[in-house]
């Protein structure tokens, strides 16, 4: 359903813009994945690992005190923060590690921004006995020192990336360079619905378990479909993961929330749909923050996981179709929302996910009383406690 065409395009977005060396390996990956997604043996293997190792299904939790605070709407949190390693990222890394094993690749590499994807990759590498290298910008390593240590504890090699803005984008460049060099024995576990075809499709496939569960759970608990889905968007994997199962439910509104950062000036945010234009970055044609000559703009967000200059191509398509809406939340709004959920529900949300809750805080007054909303709580905030304390100067 809603698959890209044979050239990997969602409408005009997507495609496969990579060096020639990677073209045959990507075709092979596509072939293997296309076969595995219809293979019942693979499917039951995946189910089992997701259940016993990743901790699925995750709860759909009615946040009653927070709902009251927001003024009489019913807000459910899809608790991806309760997944093993603390975020939705494990859904994808489990799936891709199984794909890598089927391809006979014994080494995996990954990029990471917030560190959540790196940790989830390190975990499955340990679990399946694969060698693992994770690339991470030095700026992000500073912000997420704890995750760096967690990856190393699980046996991954973490490589510092000092190029460019020293964040997620530069880590992806470096991972691509490794992959183009070692492609014969290495699988690249890209962490979001980004990059060349088939990654946007494959990552969506592994993340769409979020929405499938949530749809069934909300029907059981609420007896009806939700009115609104909200998720934060860096590359957009947790958002597409939640949205995908609901795309044909016309009554369900969906909003993706980008990082508004410190304001709308160039370099101060990661709001691709408001500050960007169409272009090609890291293998895919989509909305990108860039200058007039096609060089990529620096980005900023308080959350490392949203601090990226391009958005997944399928989101660009869904926006163009008018099926999904996209908005932003600022650093400050996200920090306020981080505190509010912590205080109302005893749940520390990741700063990424706090952009989704911040959007809902801002918009709640405009919703019909009794409206049912699902927010994807994509990750837990333990990793961000030091950053928040640093920003706010608390003790």
């Amino acid at each position, binding site marked *: 359903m809603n698959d890209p065409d044979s050239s990997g395009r969602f409408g005009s977005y997507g495609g496969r813009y990579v*060096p020639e060396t*990677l073209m045959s390996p990507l075709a092979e990956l596509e072939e293997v994945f296309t076969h595995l997604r219809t293979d019942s043996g693979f499917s039951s293997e995946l189910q089992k690992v997701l259940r016993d190792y990743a901790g699925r299904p995750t709860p759909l939790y009615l946040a009653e005190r927070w709902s009251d605070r927001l003024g009489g709407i019913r807000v459910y949190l899809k608790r991806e923060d309760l997944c093993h390693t603390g975020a939705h990222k494990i859904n994808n890394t489990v799936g891709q590690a199984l794909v890598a094993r089927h391809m006979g690749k014994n080494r995996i590499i990954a990029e990471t921004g917030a560190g959540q994807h790196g940790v989830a990759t390190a975990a499955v590498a340990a679990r399946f006995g694969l060698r693992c290298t994770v690339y991470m910008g030095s700026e992000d390593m500073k912000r997420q020192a704890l995750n760096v240590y967690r990856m190393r504890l699980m046996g991954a090699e973490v490589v510092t990336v000092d190029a460019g803005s020293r964040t997620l984008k530069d880590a992806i460049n470096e991972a691509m360079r490794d992959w183009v060099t070692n492609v014969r024995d290495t699988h690249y576990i890209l962490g979001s619905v980004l990059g060349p075809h088939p990654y946007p499709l494959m990552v969506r496939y592994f993340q769409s378990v979020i929405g499938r569960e949530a749809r069934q759970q909300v029907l059981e608990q609420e007896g009806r479909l939700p009115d609104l889905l909200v998720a934060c968007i860096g590359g957009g994997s947790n958002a597409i993961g939640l949205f995908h199962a609901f795309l044909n439910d016309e009554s369900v509104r969906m909003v993706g929330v980008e990082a508004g950062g410190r304001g709308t000036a160039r370099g101060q945010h990661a709001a691709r749909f408001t500050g960007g234009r169409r272009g090609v970055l890291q293998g895919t044609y989509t909305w990108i923050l860039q200058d007039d000559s096609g060089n990529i703009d620096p980005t900023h967000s308080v959350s490392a996981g949203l601090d990226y200059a391009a958005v997944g191509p399928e989101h660009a398509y869904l926006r163009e179709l008018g099926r999904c809406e996209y908005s932003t939340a600022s650093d400050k709004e996200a920090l306020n929302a981080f505190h509010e959920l912590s205080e109302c529900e005893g749940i520390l949300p990741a700063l990424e996910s706090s952009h989704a809750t911040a959007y809902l805080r801002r918009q709640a007054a405009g919703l019909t009383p009794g409206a049912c909303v699902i927010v994807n709580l994509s990750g837990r905030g333990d990793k961000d406690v030091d950053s928040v304390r640093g920003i706010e100067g608390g003790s």
Partner: protein
Amino acid sequence: MKRIAAAFERRNRAGEIALIPYLTAGDPSPEMTPALVDSLVEAGADLIELGVPHSDPLADGPTNQRAAARALAHGVTLKSVLQMVRQIRSHSEVPLLLFSYYNPILQYGLKKFSEEAAAAGVDGAIVTDLPPEEADELRESFDEQGLALVPLLAPTSGEARTRKILSLARGFVYYVSRTGVTGARSNLTADLRAEVEALTRLSTTPVAVGFGISSPEHVRALSGAAHGVVVGSALVEHVASSRPAEAVQAAGAFLRHLATGRRPGPEGRR
């Protein structure tokens, strides 16, 4: 495009491999690029590749990444690279190829870029992250303007892709000597010469080999098998490590050194 064919033919007819030096345009400074090109031509370069600096050069190793960063710091853009081309073309007939990532060209506008590049005196381009599957529109614009869209082939391409890519080749084919990013290497792979010989048998356009070429021995190892050889990072590094006043001369001297390998060794044929 005519200049490209003539350059290969002239050099190969003399029993020598064509030398194709690569420079990042605007490195170490925009003013020096035309003088560097002149020096390389004087030293025996047959074609010149000018790299368009990009913020995210994911197919490049550290040497070319640093060169791109220096050029970008000077404010070099695709537009100013075309200005450098005009300057060079005002006094030189050397074939000029741009080596670029796709996004700068896409943002310029494919048609506008093709027209302005042709008018400036560009002969063709190699677009690192634009495989043939995504290249139809640019190739059409290039064809209209008589520009060569030079495709890349890699050790992983496989036979079916290789045949398809060869059928779309304009100017020449750029064979990537190994999986990996740009950058000097001490050794070429053992199979390289045989791979290149197989490729030249299939190809109706000249075959140039690049990635990792850094010594006269490398050049000699390909001479008689490939039609041309690209020298990039090793030259960029050489220029970067020279004092500014000596860089132009140093570039020429390095190319002359490489050119000592341009005639086949005892095992060479053709």
